Every structure is written in structure tokens, then in C-alpha cells.
């Protein structure tokens, strides 16, 4: 570039660089001072914020009793004498966390405004209790204090107590099922004997035996022969609620449902119910829904439930003329671990049959066992051949080679399912065909001869006990007719849709069941809260009860839907769900109350704890007969709320 050109010389590169460096140096000097002044200003604000926090945590209510809001609260008795020693921040926190936000704001404002002209705010847990209305600035100093507060109107020293029941008298409901069971075809009478034990020391308030049978040739020829409850004949006391007569050609039979009050006949300890009825041209048997519902009071010691369970489900003793069968249902709870189960069958007087076919004698099936399936789990023979049929075309002729007393012990673990399990046992009968000659018996006598009885034994472990010490299990059973069911309420229908309520106090459900009551039945599908809970594994496999996982229940409205379907899936036209079906649930009630309010004497604190305990468990019909209390004296225990972080900002 030629400097002689006459162009502006101050724009040469050297000069521009030199000027830039000089200006840069100059511009940096004032910045240093601005920062230092800001630091000093922040320090001053910080002193102010901390001083204010100290004032709020040092001054007491008594000190500030002349401020308008506190004075008013004292006059109204909201603030009492024992509250006067609490700090202002305690007071503000108490009102704030009790929901009296405007009172907390007013106190803060009145205390602060006389102290400083600065801008200020008091916050707790990201909520602003009070902020002086003024513009925000970049420099803000804060002071923190973590604090728990006292409850207004309560002393901070005195006595507190807690109480728990060690023995209670509770009302509970026990359901003793009669499983679907009966005789073979063209039955003479079937005899069913149920032996069971009720806990000793109970007082029975109510006992209703619901009877659900398939009997007779017509409604007027019922052949309901005997019903003995502990030796007392009660057959004529049955109130028949539902009779459904159906015919198919010459076969005319009746499904019947009724009830009988047996409170006066039942006793604590061992009981026996004996039932005999016939169905000359069909199959005499018990239908789903036959059960005894007993309500009694029970004295119970507190304990923690086990995690390991072994339960036996005894068969009823069934004596059928031309065959005997029974279908026992039981459950494996959700979350169960290490589940095992075995079936013990003690059959008596079972015809041992064979047929000659294919040039040789073959052992025919006389004993069959089904476990959760339409395919036999066990059968004693290798065929089901008959030479010919007689007796209205249903009688199967075979060679009877003897009489046997089959004693089976089967491990059925591998066939188990979580939830409801169904095990069916058939002696000398199968479906609509029979080949027995005389009587056959599923033997069971749980009270006198438990080891030789027929039963299913299930063992499992739970991750945790269903209830702990200090908790009481309460059992309730509500008939569908008393639930909110789709109309008509007390009529039979198929399907049956009901809703029911689980209250807040019942929210800890540990077991729940649907007990199915039906006249005629085929296969059942059960939905709870729209989830498929059970479906029959085969035709005629309708269990006495269906286990409902407690985890699918919720506080508030729940719904149940039961539908009887044919093997092809269509809804059965003559098989109805009866309104005497029921929903049973077991829930947990706390039988202890924690430390309560502070009282001036130990006696007052103990009495309060006992009263609280009585009220808490009394709502569930429980009386505490033995109560233990624990009281202690306290001083300065901070409670009600906290610990909470309070923040004072000053700017």
C-alpha cells in the first residue's frame, strides 16, 4: 500500500490493533470494583436475613401478643396459655401446615413490617408464606432454618400413650362348603355326610344352611328324604326359594335351592350334617351353592400368621347307589411359592369290572380322577368299553369280577394352577353313563378318622404373613341379592352382573372368593373387574367357590360377572346364576393405636389410648378383652409437621 496515496492514515492495521488493546485494558479496570461493591452489599443483606431468622425463632407468641392477629387468636382461645412459649416461626408453621394460610400470612406480615424496610419473603418447602410486594433484584440473600412444629392448643410436655389388644372378641363368618357331588345314573338315593369342626369357645349368632340339589322326578315328587343336623331331622324346615323343573323325554327332574336355619342345632366343636335324596330317573347330586354360613363370635389371641401353610380340603363322605362322585375345589393364592399338593382317595365298595374284547380280558376303568382338565389325570383301567346298554339305554354291562376299596395317593402338584383348582373323582360312574351294581363310597370322616379320609392337601409359602401381630382378620360374606346386581336383584339370571363396594377400612384384603349358586349348570366363566378370573376346565366342572386375587380388587366400586356357557361357548339358556351366590372377603383390621395427644397425666393418656383403640376396632364389631398400654412422659417433642425447611429471603 502506498502511504503517499493520501488516504486516511489512522486506519492502518498497526494503529487499529494498538487502539483495540488499549481500550480493552481500560475497560477491564472498572469491572473489578463493581464486583467488590456487590460482595459487600450481599454481605449486608445476608446479615439482615440471618438476623430476621433469629428474630422469628427467638421471639415467642407471648412476646408478640400485642400484634393484631395474635391478639385476636388469643382472645378467641385458638392460642391457649400453653402455646405462648412457642416461637413465632412455630406459630406460623403450625397455621400454615394446618391449612390456615391467611392467618400465617398475617402474622408474618405484622411481625416483619415493624422490623425492616427491606424487601422480604418467608418460604417453606417451595411454598411462599408471605412476600412483601416490591420489585425483584438480582442480589438476594437467604437464611435457612429446619424446623418441626407443635400442634396448636396442645401441651409440649406431659404424657402420651399407645395401646394394643392382646386378645379380642370378634364376629366373623365361616363358610363350610358342600362340594358338587352325588351318585351315578338312575340313582336310588345318594347319602352325603359332612363332618366338620367349629372352633371351641365360640358363640354362634347365626347359621344358615343353603341347600342346592338336583332331585326327584318333578317338583311335587322331590324325594328329599333326610336332612339331619347333629341328629335332628330338619328336612321339613327347608324353605325352598327356587325350583326349576326340566324334562328331556321321559326324564323329568328338578333343580332346587332353599335354606334352613340351623343355629340351634350347631355346636362349637364337632358337627355332622347328613343328607339323603334321590332322583330315580336321573342323577341325584348336590349343585353349586350348597353351603353352611355360620356367623359367630370368637375369642382370639394376637399372633403373627404363618408364612407356610398346609391345608387339607376333605371330601364329604358320599355314598351313591350306582356310583359316587365329588368335585372338590381349592385355591392356590397369588404369590404362593413352593406349592405342592396331593390327593388321597379312600374309595369303598367299588365294582371292579372287565370286558372281553379283542380276544382277551381287559381291565375297564372304574376309578377316574380329573385335575383342572377334561382329560383324566388318573384311571385304573385301560378302557371304557361296555358290552351293551340297558336300563333306558344308559346301563353299561360289563363283567363284575369283584369289589375293591381303592386307596390312592396321587401327587397332583404338576397339574396345579394359581387361583382356583378343581379336582373331580368318579367311582363307577362317568358322565351320563354308569355301570355300578350297588353302592360305592368316597369315604371321609375328618373329625374321627382324618388320616383315612379322602382329602386334598395343599402346601405353599407366602412372601410375607397375611397378617402380623396387632392385626385382626375379619371375614364377611354378602349375598348377590344384597349387592348392586343387574336386574332383577333377587331373580335367577344368566349372566349375572353385580357391583360391590370395598370401603377404606377394608382395603387390606387378604383373601376373597365368589361362591356360585346355580340350579342347572354347564360351565362357568367368572370375571372380576373385567378380568377373567376362572373358566371351567370341562363341562360340569363348576366349583363351589372361585378364588379372586386380592390384588385385582380396589377400594371403591368393583364388579363381578358370572356367565354359564355351553361347551361350544354359547350362553346357556336354562342354566341360571342364583341371587344366593355370594362374595366373601377377608380383610385386616389394625388392633393397635399409636401415641396420641399429650395429656397432663399418665392416666388421661392411657384412657385416651384405650378409647381410641376401642373406637377403631369397635367399628368392625371387635371388642378388645385384653389391652396392653405403653405410656411415657415427654418434654419438648416436636410433632404435627416437619421437619420442614424455612427460608427467609431479603433483597
Amino acid at each position, binding site marked *: 500500500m*502506498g502511504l503517499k496515496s493520501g488516504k486516511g*492514515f489512522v486506519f492502518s492495521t498497526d*494503529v487499529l490493533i494498538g487502539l483495540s488493546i488499549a481500550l480493552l*485494558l*481500560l475497560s477491564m479496570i472498572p469491572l473489578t*470494583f463493581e464486583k467488590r461493591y456487590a460482595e459487600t452489599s450481599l454481605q449486608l443483606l445476608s446479615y*439482615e436475613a440471618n438476623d430476621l431468622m433469629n428474630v422469628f425463632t427467638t421471639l415467642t407468641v*407471648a*412476646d408478640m401478643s400485642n400484634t393484631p392477629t395474635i391478639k385476636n387468636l388469643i382472645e378467641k382461645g385458638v392460642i391457649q396459655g400453653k402455646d405462648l412459649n412457642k416461637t413465632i416461626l412455630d406459630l406460623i408453621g403450625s397455621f400454615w401446615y394446618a391449612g390456615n394460610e391467611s392467618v400465617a400470612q398475617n402474622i408474618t406480615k405484622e411481625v416483619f413490617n415493624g422490623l425492616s424496610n427491606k424487601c422480604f419473603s418467608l418460604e417453606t418447602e417451595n411454598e411462599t408464606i408471605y412476600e412483601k410486594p416490591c420489585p425483584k433484584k438480582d442480589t438476594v440473600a437467604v437464611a435457612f432454618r429446619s424446623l418441626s412444629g407443635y400442634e396448636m392448643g396442645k401441651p409440649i410436655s406431659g404424657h402420651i400413650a399407645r395401646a394394643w389388644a392382646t386378645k379380642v372378641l370378634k364376629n366373623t363368618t365361616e363358610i363350610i362348603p358342600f362340594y358338587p357331588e352325588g351318585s351315578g345314573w338312575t340313582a336310588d338315593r345318594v347319602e352325603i355326610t359332612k363332618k366338620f369342626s367349629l372352633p371351641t369357645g365360640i358363640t354362634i349368632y347365626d347359621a344358615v344352611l343353603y341347600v342346592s340339589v338336583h332331585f326327584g322326578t318333578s317338583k311335587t315328587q322331590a324325594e328329599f328324604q333326610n336332612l339331619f343336623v347333629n341328629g335332628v331331622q330338619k328336612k321339613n324346615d327347608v324353605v325352598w326359594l327356587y325350583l326349576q323343573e326340566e324334562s328331556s323325554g321321559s326324564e323329568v327332574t328338578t333343580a332346587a335351592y332353599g335354606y334352613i336355619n340351623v343355629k340351634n342345632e350347631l355346636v362349637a366343636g364337632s358337627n355332622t350334617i347328613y343328607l339323603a335324596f334321590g332322583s330315580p330317573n336321573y342323577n341325584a347330586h348336590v349343585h353349586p351353592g350348597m353351603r353352611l354360613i355360620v356367623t359367630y363370635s370368637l375369642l382370639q389371641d394376637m399372633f403373627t400368621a404363618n408364612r407356610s401353610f398346609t391345608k387339607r380340603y376333605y371330601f364329604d363322605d358320599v355314598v351313591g347307589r350306582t356310583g359316587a362322585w365329588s368335585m372338590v375345589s381349592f385355591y392356590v393364592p397369588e404369590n404362593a411359592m413352593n406349592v405342592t399338593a396331593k390327593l388321597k382317595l379312600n374309595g369303598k365298595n367299588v365294582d371292579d369290572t372287565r370286558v372281553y374284547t379283542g380276544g382277551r380280558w381287559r381291565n375297564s376303568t372304574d376309578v377316574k380322577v380329573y385335575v383342572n382338565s377334561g382329560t383324566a389325570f388318573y384311571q385304573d383301567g385301560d378302557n371304557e368299553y361296555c358290552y351293551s346298554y340297558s336300563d333306558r339305554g344308559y346301563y353299561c354291562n360289563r363283567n363284575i369280577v369283584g369289589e375293591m376299596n381303592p386307596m390312592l395317593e396321587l401327587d397332583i402338584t404338576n397339574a396345579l394352577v394359581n387361583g382356583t383348582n378343581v379336582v373331580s373323582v368318579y367311582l363307577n360312574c362317568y358322565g351320563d353313563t354308569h355301570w355300578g351294581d350297588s353302592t360305592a363310597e368316597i369315604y371321609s370322616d375328618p373329625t374321627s378318622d382324618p388320616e383315612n379320609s379322602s382329602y386334598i392337601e395343599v402346601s405353599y409359602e407366602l412372601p410375607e404373613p397375611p397378617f402380623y401381630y396387632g392385626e385382626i382378620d375379619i371375614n364377611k360374606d354378602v349375598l348377590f341379592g344384597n349387592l348392586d346386581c343387574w336386574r332383577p336383584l333377587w331373580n335367577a339370571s344368566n349372566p349375572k352382573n353385580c357391583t360391590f363396594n370395598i370401603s377404606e377400612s377394608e382395603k387390606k384384603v387378604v383373601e376373597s372368593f365368589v361362591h356360585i349358586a346355580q340350579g342347572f349348570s354347564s360351565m362357568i366363566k367368572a370375571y372380576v373387574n373385567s378380568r377373567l378370573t376362572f373358566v371351567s376346565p370341562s363341562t360340569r366342572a363348576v366349583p363351589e367357590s372361585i378364588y379372586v386375587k386380592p390384588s385385582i380388587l380396589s377400594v371403591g366400586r368393583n364388579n363381578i360377572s358370572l356367565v354359564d356357557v355351553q361347551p361350544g361357548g354359547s350362553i346357556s339358556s336354562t342354566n341360571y346364576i342364583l341371587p344366593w351366590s355370594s362374595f366373601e372377603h377377608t380383610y385386616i383390621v389394625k388392633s393397635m393405636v399409636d401415641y396420641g395427644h399429650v395429656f397432663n397425666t399418665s392416666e388421661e393418656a392411657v384412657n385416651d389410648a384405650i378409647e381410641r383403640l376401642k373406637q377403631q376396632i369397635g367399628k368392625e364389631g371387635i371388642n378388645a378383652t385384653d389391652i396392653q398400654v405403653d405410656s411415657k412422659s415427654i418434654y419438648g417433642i416436636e410433632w404435627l409437621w416437619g421437619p420442614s425447611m424455612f427460608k427467609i429471603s431479603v433483597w
Partner: protein
Amino acid sequence: MCLSNKGQAITYDFFVAMGIFFVVLVIIFSYWAYSLKEIEETRTKQEVFNLLTKASEVWFKEGYPVYWDAESVAEIGLMNDGRINVTKLELLNAIGYQKFLSFMNLGRYNVLYNLTGDGISFEFGRRPLSATNIYRLERIGVLSNQAVKIETIVWD
């Protein structure tokens, strides 16, 4: 580029560059001097601020012994249990300003305290009647059953 045979030191460019250089040099030295003054002033202010806060802290500590008197006092603090102790206020007059000042170790500075509240007024120290510099800090404390403003003035 066509270069002249003249020496560059006496060219027009040279004088212009020298001019700019000296102007910038003067500016830099001016700012430097100003900065030194400011830094010194700030340092002084910071020192006085530290003295000021130290002087004000006497209202927010207990001293030693905790309940000292004019004879036993080793460190002056006017607070007990979160509140200013009225007895200690009275003891300040018994100790006297000069002894108080020696405890405070404020160097060449004097101090004056003004405490005001609802119906309360307390003053201790020397008023700044012929002060060169006055530094003031206001804080809030609790005296008896009320919040009070405490003004601390340090001066020389």
C-alpha cells in the same frame, strides 16, 4: 510497493504513531493511578466493614465468661439465650468506653451503638462529632420481649 529513500523516523507516520502512543500511555497511567486509589479505598472499606461487623457481633454473642461482669470479663458479648441481656447493657457503662474499645481491638476507629425499639432507647460509645469517615451498619436483635434495631457506627 514503491518505497521512498527518506528515513522512516522523521516521516509523518512516525509522528502520528508517537502521538497515539503517548495519548494511550497517558490514559493508561491515569486509569492505573485511579485504580490504585480505588483499590486502596476498597481495601480500606473492606477492613472497616470487617471492623463494623465485628463491632456489631458483640450484640449476638455471649462473651466469656457467659455471664461476665465488669471484673471477670475476658470477651465482651451482650447476648444470652438468643436475647440481649439487659444486665450486660448496664455493665457496659460500668466497664467504660476505653476499656470496651480495648476489648474490641478496633485500632484507630471509634464506635457508637444506638439501640432503639418500642419505648426503648440505648446509646453507648463516642459520637462522631469530628469524624473523617463514618461507617454504619444496622442489624436486628431481640431485647427482652421485642425486636430492636441496633445501629453500629464506626468512625475515625
